[in-house]
């Protein structure tokens, strides 16, 4: 592990997109808060108490009046972070599958490499409880990303990312739902900004597996990406 000092935390915002996560969100926010991070939870039109629990746990809550999807929520979080003046932005999943300590590793990697984007990789790091079917699906996504963007990544759909302000200004997610994970890589590749991968750990729990997307959703993702390419 690098000994390079991480960037200063007051300039860093962790963006958590959440939809109906009342049973997990407080623990996620508290874990991040204990490490001194500013946290913005984008409550994506939840029908449960996600927003109030996130707020009680210490997060700033940005509330979508209607449910729009994870991609839209992340873009809202990034825009909030930029308008609030943050210099570094982290995207972090709401279901507790990310390790908050990995943010320090992303920061160290950013300082060490000078890249505008540091992308978490579970295949460089580790996984706990990942099924074979999930591994296969993710490997297919890696191959798809390599073909469509030319990016030789080891993990194409990891929600844990760190970006600089310049990096965040260089992306704009139009894919409201899960296709945003491919879209952001497309945009990073097109922007010409430097990116690196960093080993992280993903913990699959029964809760995160239940909340996660199904394999069939990959068809929706491909359809969304196809429709996006047809525009102009």
């Amino acid at each position: 592990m690098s000994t390079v000092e991480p960037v200063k935390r007051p300039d860093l915002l962790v963006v958590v997109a959440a939809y109906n996560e009342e049973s997990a969100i407080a623990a996620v926010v508290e874990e991040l808060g204990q490490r001194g991070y500013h946290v913005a939870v984008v409550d994506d039109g939840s029908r449960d108490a996600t927003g109030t629990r996130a707020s009680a746990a210490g997060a700033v809550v940005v509330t979508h009046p209607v449910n729009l999807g994870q991609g839209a929520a992340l873009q809202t979080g990034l825009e909030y972070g930029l308008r609030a003046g943050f210099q570094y932005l982290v995207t972090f999943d709401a279901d507790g599958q990310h390790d908050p300590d990995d943010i320090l590793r992303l920061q160290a990697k950013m300082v060490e490499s000078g890249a505008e984007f540091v992308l978490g990789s579970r295949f460089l790091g580790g996984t706990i409880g990942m099924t074979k079917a999930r591994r296969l699906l993710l490997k297919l996504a890696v191959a798809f990303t390599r073909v469509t963007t030319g990016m030789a990544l080891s993990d194409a759909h990891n929600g844990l990312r760190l970006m600089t302000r310049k990096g965040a200004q260089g992306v704009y997610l139009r894919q409201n739902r899960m296709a945003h994970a491919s879209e952001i890589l497309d945009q990073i590749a097109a922007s010409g900004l430097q990116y690196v991968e960093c080993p992280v750990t993903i913990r699959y729990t029964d809760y995160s597996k239940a909340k996660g997307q199904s394999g069939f959703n990959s068809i929706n993702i491909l359809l969304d990406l196809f429709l996006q390419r047809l525009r102009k």
Partner: protein
Amino acid sequence: MIVYLLTLLILPFYLYAFRAWQVSRLVATGLVVAGSGALLFVWIPSIANDFAGALGVGRGADLVIYVYCLLSFMLILDLSLKIKAQHHTITRLAREIAVGRALDLERHEHKC
């Protein structure tokens, strides 16, 4: 008489293609190609058989149905893109409301 009537029915496709150009050039081009094919078949019906033979479809009437399917597909695709564009507008509006409210609340808390 029927030839003029069919021509009148096909012409709006060109207007639709002109509008679709702003959303998707692929859809607009598809509409123009399919519309032109339809016009050709209306005015020179015998050409449908020649085309069908060249394409291995068999009968000209079958080819007309395929062109109709292509037109319908292009229209559905165009509608899907329009719905997506509207959804994008709604997203931007919702985002503006959400971020604006959060920043306002923060400013208010700082004042207090």
